């Protein structure tokens, strides 16, 4: 039987720790978060990123959750924090497929090498040393005017070649975030997502897709439902889990906690094995993997109380 995972994405418009914790706990109770619990911070301030890293880390330790955490700050911020001893499971960076586009992201291969070495040196892996999380998406080279006349898909595949060098745990194509000047409608977003998934498989990457769209694209949640099923059938590794599909910080729509449950049910897919065991132990799912009703007295819900201070 195959497996299918999710990144739990508990973003908050002002990085409020209690608000983020509420979304994390809700996601866990829906069986989300086996790929990673990953927060996009609203600000790249090192102090905020540190607070959020500690928040997920303490929650993960307290409940012995078999997953990893990530705060998706710029790699220079993460590097600075790693040097200060922050609990960084996964080092994040957006990457592109040309040198010029990567410069517009403020990165170079040398910088990636440095961050990779720093993340490895933390030695936090218990069953592996895959310490990088990359995000990509067709169009970033065109947006940075760094495409050299090469098509979107080829540029994107070049980004995967960069990713592969660093043995990442996760690579995620944020396919519909770029906007309609690059991918105009639902049809183009669906096509690009399947292209990305295909190239990721060819290059042997642990690829997932952020099935998403912005409100100025000619797309809606029905397009995402279609893409969700297409990618599930095509053997996609992971998608995003966001409360009600609505990212209230990044202002775009992706997939909900419920969406992943649907796909697992319809295609007979299970969460990562150790995470599924944890879900059963917590009384969140039964032996068949079906969700159990949650009681207000569940210890995870009470966990938000300690965040009052």
């Amino acid at each position, binding site marked *: 039987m195959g497996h299918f995972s999710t990144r739990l994405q*508990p*973003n*908050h*418009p002002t990085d*409020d720790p*209690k*608000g*983020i*914790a*509420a*979304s994390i*706990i*809700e996601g866990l*109770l*829906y069986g989300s978060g086996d790929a990673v619990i990953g927060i996009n911070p609203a600000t790249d301030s090192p102090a905020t990123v540190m607070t959020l890293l500690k928040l997920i880390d303490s929650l993960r330790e307290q409940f012995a959750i078999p997953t990893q955490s990530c705060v998706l700050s710029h790699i220079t911020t993460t590097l600075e924090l790693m040097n200060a001893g922050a609990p960084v499971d996964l080092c994040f960076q957006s990457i592109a497929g040309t040198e010029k586009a990567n410069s517009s992201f403020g990165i170079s291969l040398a910088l990636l090498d440095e961050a990779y070495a720093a993340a490895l040196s933390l030695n936090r892996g218990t069953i592996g040393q895959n310490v990088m999380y990359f995000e990509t998406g067709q169009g970033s080279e065109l947006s940075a005017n760094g495409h050299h006349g090469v098509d979107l898909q080829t540029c994107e595949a070049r980004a995967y070649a960069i990713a592969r060098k660093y043995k990442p745990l996760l690579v995620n194509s944020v396919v519909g975030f770029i906007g*309609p*000047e690059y991918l*105009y409608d639902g049809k183009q977003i669906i096509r690009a997502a399947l292209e990305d998934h295909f190239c990721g498989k060819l290059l042997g990457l642990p690829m997932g897709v952020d099935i998403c769209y*912005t*409100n*100025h694209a000619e797309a*809606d*949640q029905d397009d995402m439902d279609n893409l969700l099923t297409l990618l599930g059938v095509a053997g996609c590794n992971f998608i995003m889990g*966001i*409360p*009600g*599909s*609505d990212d*209230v910080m990044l*202002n*775009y*729509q992706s997939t*909900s906690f*419920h969406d992943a*449950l*649907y796909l697992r*049910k319809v295609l007979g897919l299970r969460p990562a094995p150790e995470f599924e065991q944890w879900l059963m132990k917590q009384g969140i799912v039964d032996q068949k993997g079906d*969700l159990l*009703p*949650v*009681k*207000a007295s*569940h210890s995870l*819900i009470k966990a*938000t109380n300690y965040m009052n201070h």
Partner: protein
Amino acid sequence: MGTELKHTDPLSSLKEFTPARIGIGRVGNSIPLAESLQFKLSHAHARDAVYSTLEVEALTARLKTFGLPVLHLHSRATSRQKYLKRPDLGRQLGEESVAELNDYSGDHDIAIVLADGLSATAINEHAVGLLALLLPILTASKLKIAPLCLVEQGRVAIGDDIAHALKARFSLVLIGERPGLSSADSMGAYLTYGPMPGLTDESRNCISNIRPQGLTNKPAAHKIQYLILEAFKRKLSGVGLKDNAGLIGS
């Protein structure tokens, strides 16, 4: 059966800590119908905002009460479809608009531009209210304000062309931001010292999320005033100019 099918969410008590759609419950594994319909309604509002248009006549009438000339300009994007597909055209001023501006070129400190951006709704609803607070503060600081410019199919950088044509020393662009599912009327303010064609985002300061449920007009006006005065004092804007206005009690 109905009572067993629908599971309410014990986390609804935590909703006060986040605007995220938590605690929505489930029917089987799916989002309950009421929430699904609510989501579609929110998306429809966001889509409407993208395709909303500036209420030029009404805005002009209200802006004229400030005692400044009001100009009606257009970018080189001739339709909303064009605007969405070709960001470069939305950053450039149409030829007729350039000619019109030349008549008003002169000794101005600040060019104020109101552009539809991705939500004309935001400008229709919030821009005049903000200016009613801001303009008296600016004129009290002895700053000379150029004619107010209303721009259709405009992006942020069009303010550079406008201010350059007016020979203004500073540009303030109020523009409709990309609508979120729960914020279709969010206005942004972009501030640029020494505006000229070809500048990019690192030359600007941005104040985002100006709307009644976000940053309200009064603190927004104070932040804008603070940044304008600092920019004139230090002769720069953008990454070199930090927004410390929050420190003066907001």
